[in-house]
Every structure is written in C-alpha cells, then in structure tokens.
C-alpha cells in the first residue's frame, strides 16, 4: 500500500516527467545534463512538497521549481564558462552560430538564440505543454504578459528563420 503522498507524487511524476525532461533539454541541450536537472527538480519538489499553498496547480508549482533549477544550472555553467574563457578569450563559445540548412535545426537555433524571458515562455509552452495560466503561475507573471512574450518570441523566431514580414 502506498500512502497518499506517494500516490500523489507518482501521479505528478507520471504526468510531468516527460515534459520536465523536455523542458530541461531545451535549456542544456544534452541528455546527461537533462537527467541531472530533472532529478534535481524532483528532489527539490519532494523537499518542498509541503510548501505548496494550493494556489494554482501542482503542475505549475513543479514547473516553477524546474525553472529555478534551470536558472541555478545556468548560473553554474556561466561561472564555469567564465573560468574557461580566461584561456580562450578570443574564441566564441558554443556552436550556435553555425549556419544550418536543416529546417528543424534552424528553428531550434532560433529558439536557442531568444533572450531568457522569451525562451522561458517558448519552452514552457512547446516543450512542457503548459497553458497560459500555468505558464503565468510558473513564472509568477500575468497571463497577458505570457501572451505578449509568446508573441514577441514567435516574431523573433520568424525573423531569424528568414520569413519576411509583409
């Protein structure tokens, strides 16, 4: 017999594990880090399980944790990169600027080139499959802000993939 908490956690896991992984993958781009990030996210969720105040959905609460986990990971990586860049100051970091003719790769790179605010909304919408309200809950912003960020992000992507505005 599993307790109520365990059953709830299993249910949440079942609904979100794939989407959490997808959301994390959008940030780090490799599966090893994705697994680490997803694991860290669920560990934080476990530790803070009792802190959920019931406002919004449990799923939005989890993605808020995922977002913070991702942000911490980014900070750590930036620090590491800063140390590495001392030796390679003149070399650009990453291979994101390479031209790629493949359509999916082009769009993927356009998504990766978005600023943090826009990419967060894009990832939560398309990778995590959250609704506007859930995205607003996870990011702590208004639904109108979600809509405008999504719109700006898609406009930026369209511009980057070469579709001309008419």
């Amino acid at each position, binding site marked *: *017999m599993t307790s109520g908490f365990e059953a709830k956690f*299993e249910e949440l896991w079942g609904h979100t594990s794939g989407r959490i*992984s997808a959301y994390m993958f959008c940030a780090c781009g490799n599966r090893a880090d994705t697994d680490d990030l997803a694991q860290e996210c669920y560990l934080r969720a476990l530790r803070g399980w009792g802190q959920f105040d019931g406002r919004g959905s449990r799923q939005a609460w989890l993605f808020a944790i995922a977002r913070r986990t991702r942000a911490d990971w980014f900070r750590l990586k930036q620090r590491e990169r800063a140390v590495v860049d001392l030796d390679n100051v003149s070399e650009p970091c990453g291979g994101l600027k390479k031209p790629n003719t493949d359509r999916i790769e082009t769009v993927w790179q356009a998504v990766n080139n978005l600023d943090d605010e826009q990419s967060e909304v894009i990832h939560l919408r398309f990778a995590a499959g959250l609704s506007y309200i859930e995205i607003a809950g996870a990011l702590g912003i208004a639904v109108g802000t979600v809509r*405008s960020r999504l719109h700006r992000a*898609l*406009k930026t992507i*369209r511009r980057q993939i070469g579709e001309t505005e008419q």
Partner: protein
Amino acid sequence: MKRERIERLAIDVAAGELNEDAEALLNAYLAEHPKAKQWAEQMLTTYEKTQEAIAEKTSWANTTAGTPFVGKKPTGWVKWRSVGRWAAVVTFSIIIGFAAGRWGTTDEAMGIALMEPTRGPAPVKTVSDLKEKYAGTFWGDKMLALLEHRPAQQYKADLHSVSLWDRYRLYKKEKRYE
C-alpha cells in the same frame, strides 16, 4: 485590427486558448480581410514550425519517463502473517519452558550427574594383582621382583592439596619431560 492584434489572436487559436465564440468572430473577420488572414497564417506557420522543431528535439523525453525513485518500496517483502505465527510459537515455547523449570519436579533421573574428574589418581595395578597372572614363570618372577623394589609413579599434579591452577602447571611441566 492591427497586425499585432491579429497575430496574437492567431497564436491564441493555435494554443487552444481562445473560446469558440471568439474564434468564430476572428474567422469571420479574416474571411473579409485577406491581408489580415495572411498575417494570421504567417504567425500560425511560425507557431507550427516552432512546435514541430521542439517536439522533434525533445521527442525522446516522453518515451523515457520511468517510474519515480521514491514511493516504490518493495511491497510484500515482509510476510506479517508468517512473522506473527513464528512469534506465537517462540513465545509459547518460552512460556512452557519457564513453567516446566519453575514448577516441574526434579527427581534424580532428571538431575545432572556431575562428571568425575578424569585426571584423578590413575588406577594402578598393584604388584599382588600382577603376581596372580605372572607368578611362576621365569620372566614373570624377575619382573615382579623389580616392581616390588620400585615405587609406583606418582604425579605431583595428582596431589589434591595444591590448587587447581598449580596442578595444571605441574601437569604441563611433567608432561613436557615425559
């Protein structure tokens, strides 16, 4: 309507965030305004491409979702019914044993016989015993004559006047020289 407004509504439609009435109104508007329809279609195309690219890149994630690492105790590994049965048997045995020891009669047959010390004075055959067997023969008479003039071997360790520890030490010492 402005282009931005049209595009936002198109995104809402694609995301399933616009109610049916509003969607019907939008469609009616777009049917009358080809330019606006073109803007909406462009944004929908971008939306779909973005969705497709992210779905393609993250498709593996939805197929590898395992089971959570918590809440998965091995269920049923403790057979409580069996444990209870054995506990009852052990408890009953202890009670029976205690009762038998406390109130049971102890006759001589049940008593524990103390063992005689194995290392006591060795049963030495006396010369008179040997005489009965060997007297009358040439070599027997010789042997009996020798034995009569030789005191019997007596180990100091066999003496009961010394302590047990001293007897052990003497025994070890004497055995070493034998």
